[in-house]
């Protein structure tokens, strides 16, 4: 049985109100903390550091009271590709970087295939990083409404307007992009449904099915894009009709104010980043 729920696997960008402490943080705090944590994930290349970070992120997910299964369901459709990439990396990474001889040992060599400790680490660290980034992105977008994210971004970018950076516009572009993800998902679902009722079957048969499948994909993408363009044109008109003219001189109903919890959260994240850097340059594996 074919499911047409295209949104089932779009979990990033969906706001899930659970009313946790993380939900209540200022969006700016969450944005800064998110950036610092992503930086920490990028800097960490050792096993110990990555495992530590993953545990930490899992604690944060628990704190935000987000359902783990829901976040992980975003990975399910991409799982075959992730596994294939991991295998390729593991088998063909080679014997390690030549600039650090001795850092990597060969574990297995069979024909052209070589599994080295460096390759193994590469695969494990990449997978852990991937999970970290998925959880972090979910943490940010599942606990913050799009409008809060927009205001937060705008407010953080405000100092840069001195050098001519249009903070409000950048924030708006980001917000619209995020907002469009579920809309496009719903749209795709509707198109699939109406095509299925006219006798389009989603799984092809026979030897040349990939040609038929590609054509079918075009039949989905063309109406989707036509609709997206139409929608964005309508949005532009609606914005103009309401006299939208950018962020200049615009005030907000709710002014963002940082409270103690926000400073504490940012301080904690800064400590974590420093900790990760310290662990990275100690001799732990």
């Amino acid at each position: 049985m074919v499911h047409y729920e295209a949104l089932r696997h779009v979990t990033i960008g969906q706001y899930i109100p659970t009313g946790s402490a993380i939900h209540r943080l200022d969006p700016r705090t969450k944005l800064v903390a998110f950036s610092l944590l992503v930086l920490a994930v990028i800097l960490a290349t050792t096993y110990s550091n990555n495992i530590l970070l993953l545990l930490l992120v899992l604690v944060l997910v628990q704190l935000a009271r987000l359902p783990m299964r829901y976040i992980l369901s975003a990975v399910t459709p991409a799982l075959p590709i992730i596994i294939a990439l991991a295998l390729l990396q593991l088998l063909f990474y080679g014997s390690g970087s030549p600039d650090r001889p001795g850092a990597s040992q060969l574990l297995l060599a069979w024909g052209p295939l070589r599994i080295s400790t460096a390759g193994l680490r590469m695969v494990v660290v990449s997978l852990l990083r991937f999970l970290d980034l998925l959880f972090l992105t979910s943490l940010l977008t599942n606990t913050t409404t799009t409008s809060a994210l927009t205001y937060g971004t705008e407010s953080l970018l405000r100092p840069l307007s001195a050098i001519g950076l249009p903070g409000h516009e950048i924030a708006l572009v980001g917000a619209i992009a995020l907002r469009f993800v579920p809309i496009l998902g719903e749209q795709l679902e509707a198109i699939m449904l109406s095509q299925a009722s006219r006798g389009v079957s989603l799984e092809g048969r026979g030897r040349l099915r990939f040609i038929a499948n590609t054509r079918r994909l075009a039949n989905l993408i063309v109406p989707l894009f036509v609709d997206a363009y139409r929608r964005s044109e309508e949005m532009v008109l609606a914005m103009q009709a309401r006299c939208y003219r950018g962020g200049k001189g615009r005030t907000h109903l709710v002014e963002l104010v940082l409270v103690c919890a926000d400073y504490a959260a940012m301080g904690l994240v800064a400590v974590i980043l420093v900790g990760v850097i310290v662990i990275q340059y100690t001799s732990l594996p």
Partner: protein
Amino acid sequence: MNEVLISVQGLRHTYLPGTPLATPALTGADLVVCRGEIAALIGPSGAGKSTLVHFLNGLLRPTEGGRVMIMGQDTGMPECDVSALRRRVGLVFQYPHQQLFERYVGDDVAYGPRQLGLARDEVRERVRWALRAVGLDLDAFVDRFTFSLSGGEMRRVALAGVLAMRPEILVLDEATTGLDPRGRREVHGVLRRLRAEWGMTLLIVSNDMDEVADLADRATVLHQGCTALAGSTHEVFSQREALRSLGLTCPAPTEIVYALRQQGLPIVSEAITVAEAEEAIWSIMKP
């Protein structure tokens, strides 16, 4: 006339089950449609009308409870052939631009018949017939780009695309929304002719009570995913208070007759169409 083609009992459905975004759409919906009749499904927005419609040609199949029997086939059974079902039950969606996907109008209307494996001449004949049925001229429209059509034209082309498959049951999800009064009358004419000439069974989903009173023999009212009222159109619209409590109104003629009766006039008839209201008013004005 009384052969039951669609029978839905106690149907339940939840969107995105098992996620924090799970929303119950149907909580016990019943629906009966007999051969050769025009049935109507009414209810306020968010009542689950479109969800219920998706069950009628196997786009959704009962998984949480309830039974859906379409022309003797139980769609809850895994062996039910939904692609055969979709040929016999044509579904016209609420938003026509989601239904059109070929570049030219002609190709789009021909898509269904081509999927059925019909010969070229037969396909052409069906396209001509379907476009004429919805009031569009084949030669003027066959080479138009689908995405350059106006809203009303898109609606007609989407209807033609489904008609070209010559379904036995035609389900229209708010098919006349966005049409001007004249276009609406034309579509109503088309629907009546489809039943009279081709013996099609129709189910219309509508928020326009006058349209329902005008067209339908039978009406089913959905409220929060549950069937609240069902029966002949006259029976349903005679329950004015019940409809009001569900946030729905009666057709304008019914309201007028009701208001006149409130004024003390001795009208007994439950008129739901303009013609019936006229007759009822005449009957008390004659000396």
